[in-house]
């Protein structure tokens, strides 16, 4: 499956509530999480597949209730024990179950059976022997998501090839860190909107507003403090929302975020042309930074966070964003400081450059909010 499609699926699945049934072929979902010696996971089966496996509808009225499912728990566990065998480096894992729950998927309700497996000391190889519903419905497949020490693999289980073997590589959380760090840098550089916003707030840092005119700051110190304040506020704000969104605490529609990000650039740039907020620009940086964080989060959501290394990857991505942002600030601000007293900077770059940025952002805003 191609990546963009998959991403769409994942994103929209998260937003989807319970829906009526769709007729897709029978799929079970096996999630496994290997961390060191600990293997935890869950098997998810459609209620109607559970019915085929062990018979859930005890009163035979054609409906499966939660009460019936709960009372079939032992039967289900035994069925899974008999039809899903896990081996770590050749040795059978000992599986223990936790209480059954249910989960809503697009094609109906699924039973969700969580378990832990004891597979000895840090297995290097996991073999999965999946024969669930093999006799009852040979077209049934188990869709596997296997996270091992930060790396995620997927696979299709069942059918003719009953036993599948997966290699679990260990040192991947370091490579995940580098990958996400790079993604963060790349994102801030290619997503020019975040930079334009920051730049609009930083352009006046080397100037002072006096009697409706821009004047060069006499010394480097206040300019430096100004820059540090703005950059810190922006960083702090977008880190907060990026983390909240990455851990699914808050989610915003991307159309809204993207539109408001465009609007934030307009506001920041126009503030240079028609100054309203001349002191404490860091407040603007903070307020809108919150929104920009959601923008970063949508990129991160597209990449997906590896389950075993969510925090590490999130930190790496955020660090990447900061590194990329600082690099740009360090490249531009010394130049701005150097040229601060020229008319070119005060009457050219400030009003005209800012206007150009505002115009560009206006185009984005119209595209994102209205089209």
């Amino acid at each position: 499956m191609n990546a963009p499609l998959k991403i769409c699926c994942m994103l929209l699945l998260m937003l989807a509530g319970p829906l009526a049934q769709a007729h897709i072929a029978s799929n079970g979902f096996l999630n496994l999480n290997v961390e060191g010696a600990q293997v935890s996971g869950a098997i998810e089966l459609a209620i109607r597949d559970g019915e085929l496996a062990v018979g859930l509808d005890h009163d035979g009225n054609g409906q499966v209730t939660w009460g019936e499912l709960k009372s079939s728990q032992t039967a289900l566990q035994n069925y899974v024990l008999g039809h899903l065998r896990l081996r770590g480096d050749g040795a059978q894992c000992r599986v223990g179950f936790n209480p059954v729950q249910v989960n809503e998927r697009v094609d109906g309700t699924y039973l969700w059976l969580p378990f832990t497996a004891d597979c000895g000391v840090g297995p290097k190889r996991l073999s999965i022997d999946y024969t669930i519903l093999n006799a009852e419905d040979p077209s049934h497949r188990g869709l596997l998501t296997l996270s091992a020490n930060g790396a995620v693999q997927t696979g299709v289980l069942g059918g003719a090839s009953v036993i599948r073997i997966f290699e679990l590589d260990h040192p991947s959380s370091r490579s995940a860190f580098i990958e996400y760090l790079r993604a963060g840098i790349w994102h801030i550089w290619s997503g020019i909107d975040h930079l334009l916003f920051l730049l609009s707030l930083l352009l006046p840092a080397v100037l002072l507003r006096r009697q409706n005119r821009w004047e060069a700051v006499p010394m480097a110190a206040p300019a430096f403090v100004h820059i540090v304040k703005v950059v810190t506020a922006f960083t702090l704000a977008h880190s907060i929302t990026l983390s909240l969104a990455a851990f699914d605490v808050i989610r915003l529609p991307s159309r809204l975020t993207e539109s408001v990000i465009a609007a934030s650039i307009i506001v920041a740039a126009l503030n240079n042309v028609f100054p309203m907020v001349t002191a404490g620009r860091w407040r603007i940086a903070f307020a809108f930074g919150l929104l920009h964080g959601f923008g970063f989060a949508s990129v991160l959501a597209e990449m997906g966070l590896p389950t075993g290394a969510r925090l590490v990857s999130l930190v790496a991505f955020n660090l990447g964003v900061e590194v990329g942002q600082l690099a740009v600030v360090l490249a531009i601000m010394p130049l701005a400081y150097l040229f601060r007293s020229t008319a070119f900077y005060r009457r050219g770059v400030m009003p005209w450059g800012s206007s150009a940025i505002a115009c560009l952002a206006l185009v984005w805003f119209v595209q994102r909010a209205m089209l």
Partner: protein
Amino acid sequence: MSKSVSLSCMLWGRLFACFAVALLGGGLSSAQADPYVPRTENAVLAELSAGTRFADVTARRLARARVDVAIPLAQFYIQQARISGDLRFLGYAEAVLAPWVKTNPPLPDVLVLQATLQQSRHEFTAALATLDRASAARPADPQALLIRATVLRVLGRYAEAGPACEQFSRRVEPRLGALCTQSLRGLTGDLESAYAALTQISSQGWLNAEKSWLYSELGEMAVRLGRDDDAQQWFQRDLTLVPTDFYVRAAYADLLLRQRRPAEVLALLKGQESFEPLLLRIAIAQKQLDDPGLAQSSVRLRTAFSAELQRGEAVHRREQARFLLEVEEQPKLSLGAAIENWTVQREPDDVLVLVNAAKAAGSPAAAEPALAFARTQGQTDVRVFR
């Protein structure tokens, strides 16, 4: 200056309030798909339809020992799959047949059912191989001949489909045989006269399924001839007779969509969302209408298609291509799916899907193989060739 600051503070205060509202709204609307414990014992988790109960598994176990149970049971499941569009029934049929396919040699009836299953899954090459085995055991079985003609036709191998059709004609009532041959002629350069010939056929005394076959062929021919009003009549006639004919319902919906009558599509397909090809038409209609239901339909289609893709199956590739183009507006991705679809099946609709995707993706040359194929066969299709 202090004045301007307080003014701007008010401005920011208001903006901030806006954000807070937006944040809250976002938080509320993000319904999570996480496992949960239902509130009451009586909460109904699923409704089980006929043939999906645990007791049926017992019948299936019995079928492992007795072929006279296995064959009708498999037929029942295939029928259920057709009526409901539920692909799981094909799996149940497969389970019932599995031990009987492995016997040496399998009964011809078992092989024909096996080929039917393979055809339903678009495993066309495998279906043809199974039919070869069936005809070795029992030559000129009408059902086997008809499946062979159908499969070859879907593959665009008209020269081979012809003999299968003729053989079929010799074994069944002549009017049914004519239906097979004329439908094939309609794809190989004689659409106008084949259509005229079929309109003359009397379907008196036919089973509903046979009449339905005639009407659907006529409807599709009329579409390719550009006689939309005729097509609509044939489709309506068919649906009055066999309301569960998903295939014709989809073709009818396509006609309405082309005529920009999305509201009628929604009315036509109301309550049939569980069948992906129909759900696709619903989504396209919702897109034309700017209907808020589109988001939900898209999620369901994406989920279904992505599961199919992960499983490496090709059942709905044509629909995937259309979904990507007409709902998702991803012409490049759609073209990829359409090209892959063309390697699997070559019906007029497959030509159309490929041509549309190639045009939208800005690489019309990608559709050239399909266009060349249709031209060589002398096909008429106003949707493709204006």
